[in-house]
């Protein structure tokens, strides 16, 4: 551990790891739930589809502290999920981040799926594709939009403060190892304490992570035929 005021490698590393762990698992869960929802809504016409789409879009603007409060009540001892004893754990933070990331992911990926022209679906069908083949073709055609949805969901999750503060408790052990403290909640704490250097270091790490994730998305887009803008 090297010291520079309150700045310690253990603190930075563990806080970063908690952020990555919580956000990554939340986005994976959001994708596992959200992508099938996007495909189901995107492929089918049904009564009330526009209402469903509106609800999903509205979810993108959920206030994170309200989500945190609801998850807190659900996970508290007297709440319906209290028996799982998850409150003030990384898993509680994953739940709240999943709820926040899900509408972002569904809304953007749904838009991507719906934007695939009908004539490409027709071409896949006419080429002998089954309904499964056509669905896979649509996912492939919408891949850049779906990657954008994943990136946006990741951005929403990793930059989240309010709900993870409420359900995670912002806990750090006495040896400076983070348990439920993320980069964002750590910045809040360090700024309040006047530890500007630590706050800046944490902010730089957060920005680097976000940039790295977006760079990966851009690299995917540019290396695939049809992906580069013309």
């Amino acid at each position: 551990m090297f010291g520079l005021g309150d700045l310690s490698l253990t603190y930075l590393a563990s806080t970063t790891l908690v952020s990555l762990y919580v956000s990554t698992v939340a986005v994976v869960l959001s994708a596992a739930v959200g992508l099938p929802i996007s495909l189901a809504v995107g492929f089918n016409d049904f009564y009330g589809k526009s209402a469903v789409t509106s609800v999903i879009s509205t979810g993108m603007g959920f206030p994170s502290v309200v989500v945190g409060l609801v998850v807190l009540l659900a996970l508290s001892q007297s709440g319906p999920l209290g028996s799982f004893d998850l409150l003030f754990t990384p898993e509680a933070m994953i739940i709240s981040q999943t709820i926040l990331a899900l509408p972002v992911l569904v809304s953007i990926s749904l838009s991507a799926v719906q934007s695939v022209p009908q004539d490409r679906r027709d071409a896949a069908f006419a080429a002998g594709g089954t309904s499964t083949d056509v669905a896979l073709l649509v996912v492939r055609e919408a891949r850049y939009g779906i990657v954008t949805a994943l990136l946006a969901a990741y951005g929403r999750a990793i930059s989240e403060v309010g709900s993870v503060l409420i359900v995670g408790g912002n806990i750090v052990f006495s040896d400076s190892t983070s348990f439920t403290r993320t980069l964002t909640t750590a910045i809040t704490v360090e700024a309040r304490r006047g530890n500007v250097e630590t706050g800046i270091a944490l902010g730089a790490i957060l920005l680097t992570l976000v940039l790295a994730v977006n760079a990966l998305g851009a690299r995917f887009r540019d290396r695939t035929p049809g992906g580069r803008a013309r």
Partner: protein
Amino acid sequence: MTARGGTWDDSGSERPVPGGNQTGIRLAARNLSHGFEDGAVLEDISLAVEPGEVLAVVGPSGTGKTTLFRLLALFEPPTDGTVEVDGDDVWELSEARRLAVRRRVGMAFQSRSLFSATVEANVSYGLRVRRSWGTRVRDAVGRALGQNGPSETVIEALQTVGLGDKIDRDAASLSAGEAQRVAIARALAPDPDVLLLDEPTSNLDPRNTAAIESAMRAARARGIAVALATHDMQQARRVSDRTAVLLDGACIESGPTDRVFDSPTDDRVRRFVDGKLVY
């Protein structure tokens, strides 16, 4: 390319069944009517496309040619009447047998319909979806590792439309004419028995039009039954053996192309051929 014909394989695979009909298939519409919520589009259409011929379905825009071709390509069942292959009502067949029928019919559309991928990936699509999932995964891994090159079938289909040198190009970088030719190569690659071309040369320059007409003739020479929807009367005359004239959703005349053009029995056809019937 495989030999023409074969009987329907329940698996829907590309493999022709040994001992089947080796002379191709006859795709027919019998008393076909179709409508949407806002009214009837097709009324009592009966026509057939035979192996080794080009049938031109001509008529003004909006007269139901695309709807007819979508019904022949089995996108949906007709409101009334039947789509028949070698005399069998296709919509009475099991789903697996209908898929097998569908996989012997190729179609290219008027609109730009290439996938966001390379030319090779577009043309090989019809071949890939006919393979088992295990083979598809092995092929995908092989491609990712750079072990699989383009198949001879794909190269041959592209050569048929004069684009053998474009195989590695990104489909998005093609001109409209080249894209339409790739779409036809995609329809030809699985070696269909029937090829449906819906206004394949509308808005294309003479060079691309000539290339597509050459591909039609090559398909006919291979014994493929080619149906061409067009509002270009001169093109119908150049490439087709028989012509059916659609007007207001009804087939008002059909027969050998020379006879339909030179001595039509219906006065509306005469005026349409002469360019005096304007829609």
